[in-house]
């Protein structure tokens, strides 16, 4: 019985190792085969089953949006640099720092608004059902980030940031 148990254990181990190693290899090879590193929109085509015509329309929107996105990122980064310089220099009036924070917040809001507008336009270039799904997913992924901690600002006694 001991010998049989040993044989069965070995069979189990060898089988698991074979399946595990093969699956790792297959996962890597298959992911590389499917990947299209140069194309930012490969996910849209695949996930939302877009036709070439739909993808072509979205490519135009995407190309038009990217310079605006880059511009917002540069401006926000620049204002952030100025804010840190003000904070590190010390002795600045609170009003100056507040004004800088407001400027950054305004830029961030404008960036988000432009982003949402772009997502809306892209969703309208998709078939209706897929467009709704895309919009919901993009809102969740891009605004959910803020919403998660902003919800804690609401009166939630369970939140670690709750105010008495």
């Amino acid at each position, binding site marked *: 019985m001991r010998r049989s148990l040993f044989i069965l254990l070995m069979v189990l181990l060898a089988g698991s190792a074979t399946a595990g190693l093969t699956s*790792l290899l297959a996962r890597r*090879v298959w992911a590389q085969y*499917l990947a299209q590193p140069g194309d930012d929109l490969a996910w849209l085509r695949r996930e939302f089953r877009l036709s070439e015509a739909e993808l072509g329309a979205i490519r135009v929107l995407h190309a038009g949006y*990217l310079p605006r996105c880059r511009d917002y990122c540069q401006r926000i980064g620049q204002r952030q640099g100025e804010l840190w310089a003000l904070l590190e220099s010390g002795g600045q009036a609170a009003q100056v720092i507040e004004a800088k924070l407001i400027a950054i917040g305004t830029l961030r809001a404008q960036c988000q608004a432009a982003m949402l507008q772009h997502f809306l336009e892209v969703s309208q270039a998709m078939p209706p059902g897929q467009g709704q799904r895309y919009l919901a997913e993009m809102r969740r992924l891009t605004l959910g980030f803020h919403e998660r901690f902003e919800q804690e600002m609401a009166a939630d006694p369970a939140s670690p940031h709750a105010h008495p």
Partner: protein
Amino acid sequence: MSKPVPPMEDLKLSALLRAARPERALPPGFNEAVWRRLERDSGTGFDTGLADFLDRLAALFLRPRLAAAGAVAMVLVGIAVGVVQGDRLASDLARQQYLAAVSPMTSR
């Protein structure tokens, strides 16, 4: 009562038969096998049944054809799982690439 003495011919015949069928040496491990069998037979019915089942199962995997078929099955299972996981991985990477392009404010 004393046992009857066999006739001389019977004694000769017995000696002749013994000489014609010499006793062979026991095969190696015979004693261990006998003890194992005795040990097994003295166990409970459930133990014996389980041991028999495990022995039969182990013997199955020792057959080259079945062992090869099992190995091929494991490779196929691995490939199937890998393809499903690779599909998800490729989709996740592509999604991250898209999000990185369109949004600096992303939760993954």
